């Protein structure tokens, strides 16, 4: 009975993140449009786009190998699993022991690995351009993420997200300088990883500035739908991650009672909405950065993360 309940909750979480991810992206777009005094697309437009893409016939470049067609499935599945390993409304899920925060960060690395390979597979210059810029960003963003993981894990005494979330929820930490640095760094890494302004503009197809869009330029139909869905899942993952570490308010400790669970789901959606509004405000007020300024931006995140970790090595109370 207990196992079936746990399995059901884990399955529920997987479906929840899958269903909520396009909604979050749609909500960010809508909020941004409203801030710019446009009417904006309807909230459910992302779902409609996905449905339309799935129904279309795929066009694949002549020289593309099997990797080009397998990669979208891998990217989607890996991102989805990574996103459902992050606690959203409840902490102790069945598969939370399968991997810690380092594993989640590395899974995102795997997804990006296949994304970049697929970009190089067609043999056009746009794919290479996107992949080479993404490689430069990733080479700094991944260490930055690991430094943040170190800082958080040292405070909580565990790199297991469920334990970290419970620990943060207990309020034993108080205000810490290292956690402040880690939060700033994590937000910066999240902006880079999800390809938002000022690092990458999700709405542009201008070749001088494209990164993510250049990599997926040759994709169409169901393959593009999978990659777009994976991209929305990645945004959801980072929002969930920031929420469960730094704002664990309302998250249910275990899944045996219905009341806290429902409250947890409601709190989770409230956090998503808040994050979407903040992101929209941030993106509206900032301009795109030159590509070679981005390493400075991510380098700052890396240094903040390293500083947070160093502080914790020097004193456990900072």
């Amino acid at each position, binding site marked *: 009975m207990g196992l079936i309940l746990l399995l059901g909750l884990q399955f529920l979480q997987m479906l929840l993140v899958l269903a909520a991810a396009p909604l979050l992206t749609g909500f960010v777009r809508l909020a941004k449009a409203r801030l710019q005094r446009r009417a904006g697309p309807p909230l459910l437009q992302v779902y409609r786009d996905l449905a339309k893409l*799935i*129904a279309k*016939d*795929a*066009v*694949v*470049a*002549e*020289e593309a*190998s*099997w*990797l080009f*067609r397998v990669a979208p*499935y*891998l990217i*989607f*599945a*890996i991102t989805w*699993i990574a996103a459902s390993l992050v606690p959203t409304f409840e902490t102790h899920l069945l*598969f939370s*022991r*399968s*991997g*810690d925060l380092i594993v989640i960060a*590395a899974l995102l*690395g795997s997804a990006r*690995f296949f994304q*970049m*390979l697929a*970009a*190089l*597979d*067609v*043999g*056009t*210059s746009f794919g*290479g351009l996107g*992949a*080479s810029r993404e*490689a430069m960003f990733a*080479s700094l*963003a*991944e*260490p930055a993420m*690991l*430094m943040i993981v*170190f800082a958080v894990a*040292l405070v909580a*005494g*565990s*790199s*297991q997200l469920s*334990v970290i979330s419970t620990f943060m929820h207990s309020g034993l930490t108080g205000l810490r300088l290292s956690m402040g640095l880690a939060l700033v760094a994590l937000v910066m890494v999240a902006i880079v990883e999800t390809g938002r302004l000022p690092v990458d503009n999700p709405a542009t197809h201008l070749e001088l500035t494209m990164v993510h869009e250049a990599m997926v330029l040759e994709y169409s*139909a*169901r393959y593009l739908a999978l990659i777009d869905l994976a991209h929305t899942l990645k945004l959801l993952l980072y929002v969930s991650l920031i929420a469960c570490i730094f704002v664990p308010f309302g998250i249910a400790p275990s899944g045996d009672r219905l009341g806290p669970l429902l409250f947890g789901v409601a709190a989770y959606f409230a956090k998503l909405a808040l994050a979407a509004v903040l992101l929209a405000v941030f993106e509206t007020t900032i301009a795109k950065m030159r590509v070679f300024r981005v*390493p400075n931006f991510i380098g700052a995140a*890396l240094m903040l993360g*390293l500083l947070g970790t*160093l502080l914790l*090595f020097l004193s456990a109370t900072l």
Partner: protein
Amino acid sequence: MTSTILFCALAWILLGGFGALRGRTPEAGAVVYGGSFIVAVIASGAAILQLGFGVAPGVAVVLPLGLPHLGMNFQITALSAAFLIITDVGAAAASLYAVGHGRNEREPWRVLPFFPVFIAAMNMVLIAADAYDFLIFWELMSLSSWALVVAHHEDEEARTSGVVYLLMASSGTLALLLAFGLLAGVHGQYDFASIRADHPGSWIGAVVMLLALFGAGSKAGLVPLHIWLPRAHPAAPSHVSALMSGVMTKVAVYAFVLIVFDFLGKPAWWWGLIVLIMGGITAVLGVLYALMEHDLKRLLAYHTVENIGIIFIGLGLALAFRAERLDVCAALALAAAVFHAFNHSLFKNLLFLGSGAVLARTGERDMERLGGLLRRMPQTGLLFLIGSVAISGLPPLNGFASEWMLFQAILLSPRLSAWSLKLAVPSVGAMLALAAALSAACFIKVFGITFLGRPRSPAASAATETDVFCRAGMIGLAALCIVVGLAPGMVIDLFAPVTRSLLGARLPAGHGMSWLTVVPISLSRSSYNPLSIFALIAAGGGFAAVILHRYGSRIICRAPPWGCGYASPEDASDAFPPVGTQYSASGFAQPIRRVFGSFVFNARDEVTMPPPGDVAPAHLVSALIDPVWQGCYAPLLVLVGWAADRANRLQFLTIRRYLTIVFITLVGLLVWIAPWG
């Protein structure tokens, strides 16, 4: 089991003799390589039996050879059994591959005598139980691999590589000789049992540690002692490169662990610091060198440097923990290092064998002239992809499992009390993370440029799949990468006797969970279960495929990609390099070269543009300066030249002066030994 390994070594040496006598006959390759495959399978089976199931442990064999009062002592400890597994699994795969690959060799009689002897020498180093044997076989290992490096002696490159290798190997052996001399003490105890029983004083111990770091580090490729490695490893035939990079560097790691962990007793706190910092610098510099490189085999050799850095980070952490008597933490770090050594031997062998297949079928090592090979060599391509994912440290394959354990060891290090270590460990952790991220970027370059896209030369477009023996060797290694990645607990449990015998501590075994989950310290701290992650990913991908095929369109239309208005290479198929817009390896690495290379290598790109209206091509020249060569070896060469010039004067003296010099030397020596008289 010791005698089994000795018989195996004898069989290899006999095979080498057969290669020397009958090397020019057509069937010699199959006999030598096939024989050495069978012997390697037997040897690795024996090592696994001893380490995993405790069959015949610790039997010592003394042969009546060598020094008269000492004999030749052989014994397999837990440590040497672990490294025997690493060596012989790699040797088996490389030999099987060579059955097919050896046919491509132009002059097989230059390779056949030395290949089995090289494997035998590595095995003998691992089972040697006295300093005399150890050094004899260490030197045999160096010399036989040197002979293999210069097998293609018509190449200028192979000859200079051979000279550099010989110099570095000799100075490394000299350092080990001095280290063993100090360990033997005034009574000259050369057998390992008495060395083990008798820990030297703190000063002697420190000198021995530094000598071992130099001697083993120069063989393993620690920066700044790595310069021979990216020259010598690629110059050898590919199956030998695989053994040198994947296996011989591990024998050097064994030598370091043996001397520092087994012989020296409790370390001082700063030993770990030195090893950690050298490991961190080696990891980052190795991968940055690799990113700047476009020669496939040399790039892989630079990645060996990087992975050796990762292994030494683990060893440094273990030393630091051990100095503060945190034995469980030390066991975690040491287990991670040994596990990474094993993993590296698997995927580096696989990648070198794959690059050998590419070289054999296209004749090209330069990535800028490859491309599109995944369609032409589909199986080699898939196997190379598995190796690339594994070496990039991506879950759920094996490279990630050992790096994850290393990160867990770093997370335990705030318990260390030394202040310099508190500052150094997080920085080294950041360097490790940087190296891991950069190596993923590098292998996207390798796989993306070599196997994906469109061919960049006629040779690449005419490539065909490699033969069945080559594929069999690679399939074995790739399968091991996957199995070890999905069930890392199996290998960690297999290697557990190593940490138990060296540190008296081991990792908690499973915590009542199955061996599928890795739990370094306790379940509430961290755990990793790659099999369930893999199952979830497979289920997620399958779910997506089912939904899309049920509800979506299944039609695929093939169309030419948009080439930005340039002609596709199919239009101008006689023009190579094609007038295309495809990215090159140097183009792919350009952003990283600009971000990291301008700082580390003083990299400069110079563009010469023709004036407007001129149709002459534009030129891009990118220049790099190797900081290690510039900082260490160039001054050393100047110094050696200066000293040689000075010494040259001695050649042209009169007989009276020679006699004076002899007399003065004699008096000096007599005065020096007078106090002992």
